[in-house]
């Protein structure tokens, strides 16, 4: 039996635990990265490299080393997945007419990670997740979507309590840092400071709105018409304020007195899901779409 098939078979019969964490929820720049790390349940001690702990307590170099170790483990011992949500996607979802908040975006990403693991053939029975928003609702989403989960732990500070979540936090953090470092400005966009081209090592600071470097970068790079490069999350209030102050005021072709759109009642089917005839089984993800619950 080829090794690939062998581990796939083993992965199916063993019960696996998965840990999920994110990096980059707060910053106004760059992607939000969700990462998962899975290993056979109960084997966290032997499968996870020593030194793995909450990514915030490690230096960038330590994180890189551990990241390398984590990624080198054979897939029948330890596996990792990542979901990268671009700043454009975040802006688009949060500013859409039917807004999707960051918590829902985060929950969807975490659920997608578990789905990826299951699709890859892993039999996942335990999940450990750092909480975002209400822990109870978050946990319910996991249980509804994945009935095979025997144990779901959603709690604050899970990244320091569970080794798998710590490992996931390292993968997420390193992935985000690398993406930010490699971020290529679209052609023609230059750092506003004296027309200097925006190279890979830019001085936007930590990306958090509270960082003065980030604020200065944002101040330099606001374009009166186009706003910001796609690296920036337009939906952050700090951007909204800057755009209001520095960008030109747009007068839309439709005058204010007119209605922008013909007032149209929305369909009831946006809210209720069709029930399959003859079956009363509740599908995961059924329910009011816009009460913040996941869709299939």
């Amino acid at each position, binding site marked *: 039996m080829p090794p690939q098939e062998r581990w796939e078979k083993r992965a199916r019969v063993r019960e696996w635990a998965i840990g999920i964490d994110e990096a980059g929820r707060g910053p106004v720049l760059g992607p939000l990265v969700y990462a998962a790390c899975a290993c056979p349940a109960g084997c966290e001690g032997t499968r996870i490299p020593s030194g793995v702990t909450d990514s915030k307590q490690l230096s960038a170099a330590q994180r890189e080393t551990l990241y390398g170790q984590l990624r080198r483990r054979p897939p029948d011992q330890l596996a990792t997945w990542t979901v990268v949500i671009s700043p454009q996607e975040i802006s688009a979802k949060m500013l859409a*007419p039917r807004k999707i908040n960051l918590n829902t975006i985060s929950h969807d990403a975490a659920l997608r990670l578990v789905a990826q693991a299951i699709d890859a053939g892993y039999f996942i029975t335990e999940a450990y997740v750092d909480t975002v928003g209400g822990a109870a609702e978050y946990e319910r989403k996991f249980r509804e979507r994945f009935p095979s989960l025997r144990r779901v732990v959603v709690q604050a500070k899970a990244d320091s309590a569970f080794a798998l979540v710590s490992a996931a936090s390292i993968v997420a953090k390193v992935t985000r840092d690398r993406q930010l470092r490699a971020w290529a400005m679209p052609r023609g966009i230059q750092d506003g400071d004296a027309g200097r081209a925006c190279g890979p090592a830019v001085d936007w600071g930590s990306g958090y709105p509270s960082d003065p470097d980030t604020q200065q970068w944002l101040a330099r790079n606001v374009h009166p018409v186009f706003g910001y490069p796609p690296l920036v999350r337009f939906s952050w209030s700090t951007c909204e304020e800057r755009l209001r102050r520095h960008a030109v005021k747009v007068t839309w072709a439709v005058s204010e007195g007119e209605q922008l759109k013909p007032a149209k009642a*929305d369909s009831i089917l946006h809210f209720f899901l069709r029930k399959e005839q003859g079956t009363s089984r509740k599908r995961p993800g059924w*329910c009011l779409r816009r009460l913040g619950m996941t869709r299939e």
Partner: protein
Amino acid sequence: MFEARFTEASLLKKILDAIKDLVQDANFECNESGVALQAMDNAHVSLVSLLLRGEGFDLYRVDKPESLGINLNSMSKIMRCAGNNDSVTMDKVESADTVRFLFESPSADRMSEFHLKLMDIDSETLEIPEAMYHAEVELPSAELRRIVADLVTMGDSVRVSVSKEGVRFTVKGDEGSGSVILRQSTGVDKPEDAIHVLMNEPVEQSFALKYLNLFCKAAPLSARVQIKLSRDAPLLVNYAMSNVGHLAFYLAPKIGDEEDEQ
């Protein structure tokens, strides 16, 4: 065999009058617990959900669950043949493709019977989750009918907002605008006129008055009506028929209006 008997044919008549302008064809799902109907209007903006509990009938018998596909307009025509005080019996034998309506006068000296052809209706059943609503208002059904009838002359959509001060219905039209506000009142003299406003969170949503106006045709069914609202969820207008069941309408909010406000 399906057999159901109501002392008041007029109640069934009122139900039909309330929904026949919204829905053309619908399936009456009959099982041991009662008769249920769920249907959307053609534009899929609203949903009607009717429940008549078995114990609400004078006689109720279902041997095997049945789905009766009925053209509501035709049924309404038949129901109009019933006298005001008549009782009505609906029955259908298993193999039959018609349902029989039998009207009897109270003194039992006049009987009439009509057969209505059944139809095969492809209908989708929707899952209606038990949602927690942000605000609930209970008021006399005549009051709601009056508000909607007044506002529908002014514009297409009504903005319903529930806040601490009460519930406000606002309409903006080409000629002008108007609003009606109802405050919580216990109705000391007449409890049936009381207005209860229960607010967990303030809500504000717009709805098409055209549909609300159609819903209000159910006012004769019940002296009281409940309105339930949630942000980002359909409006529920519920007419409870004591001991019999309920007639509930769901209406999708207007999305375009919300954007305009911001």
